[in-house]
């Protein structure tokens, strides 16, 4: 079957969540499941493309490399097809597919003797992490402004924000994040998923999702400030 679907890299940003103009995403879950069961290849191809980036990012939490993550996504779809007749619709299809992905990735990690960052995902609050270096604030015993800014952030040069290099800095900062933070910021802010979608895909509590997002954004903001600050000073 010829590929007739446009594949713009920007589309997802304008089509967050389930509101898409593409055939498969405008179908209800039940229609989509029925189409897949009936062997509708266009519907399948569409959903595979639509979720691919998110699947890869979640797979990367549990895998040592992009290449292994790609394999986990491939394996996930095989399992999804194999189990499709048993899908009962108690969760959304998307949530179900992501659960299968997580199980696939964990099983593979176990098989390969790798440790999995469970605690990073489910107990992020256990290890405190400041959004801003404590050194930048006045000490607690300051007479007038305890905990106030000692070294406040200064305005960033707007014209440099949109430069290609700035985006590279941000890409590198995201790549350097702990895997669970990287997944959450990528899904929320790059892919445009809702917090509920991220929570379901990763089986995260609302609070933990927010903690991971907060830390990820705080670190990326710091990278942005570090990169642009020499210009400001």
């Amino acid at each position, binding site marked *: 079957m010829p590929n007739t679907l446009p*594949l713009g*890299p*920007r589309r*997802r*940003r304008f089509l967050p969540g389930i509101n898409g103009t593409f055939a498969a995403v405008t179908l209800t879950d039940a229609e989509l499941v029925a189409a897949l069961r009936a*062997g509708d*290849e266009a519907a*399948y*191809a569409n959903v*595979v*493309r639509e979720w*691919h*980036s998110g699947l*890869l*990012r979640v797979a990367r939490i549990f895998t040592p490399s992009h290449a292994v993550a*790609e394999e986990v996504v*491939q394996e996930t*779809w*095989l399992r999804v*097809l*194999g189990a499709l*007749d048993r899908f009962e619709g108690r969760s959304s299809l998307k949530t179900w597919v992501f659960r299968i992905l997580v199980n696939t990735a964990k099983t593979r990690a176990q098989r390969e003797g790798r440790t999995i960052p469970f605690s990073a995902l489910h107990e992020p609050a256990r290890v405190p992490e*400041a*959004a*801003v270096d*404590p050194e930048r*604030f006045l000490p607690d015993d300051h007479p007038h*402004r*305890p*905990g*106030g*800014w000692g070294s*406040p*952030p*200064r*305005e*960033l040069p707007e014209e440099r*924000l*949109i430069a290609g290099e*700035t*985006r590279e800095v*941000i*890409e590198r900062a*995201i790549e350097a994040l702990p895997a669970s933070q990287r997944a959450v*910021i990528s899904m929320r*802010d*790059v*892919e*445009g998923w809702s*917090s509920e979608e991220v929570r379901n895909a990763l089986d995260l509590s*609302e609070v933990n999702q*927010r903690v991971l*997002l*907060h830390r990820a*954004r*705080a670190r*990326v*903001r710091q990278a*942005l*400030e570090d990169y642009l600050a020499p210009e400001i000073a």
Partner: protein
Amino acid sequence: MIDTEALSCQELVELVTDYLEGALGERDLRAFEGHLADCDGCTEYIDQMRTTIRVVGTLTPNDLTQAAETALLQAFRDWKRSPS
């Protein structure tokens, strides 16, 4: 719970995501906005967090490679021939 009188800059920066996500309770929200109205440093910090979110949003999602797509479609055709 945060003391309305004593919300410091250092405390505020830890609440920014709760604020942007609409997750602050009424009392915390009042303390947060009250502090913000009077603090240039924290106003700039929030601006930078918003900027960060905006710039991160211009990054490109991972698209499916041709090889991966071919393999996934082949898997579907195989499954269609002999569904497990």
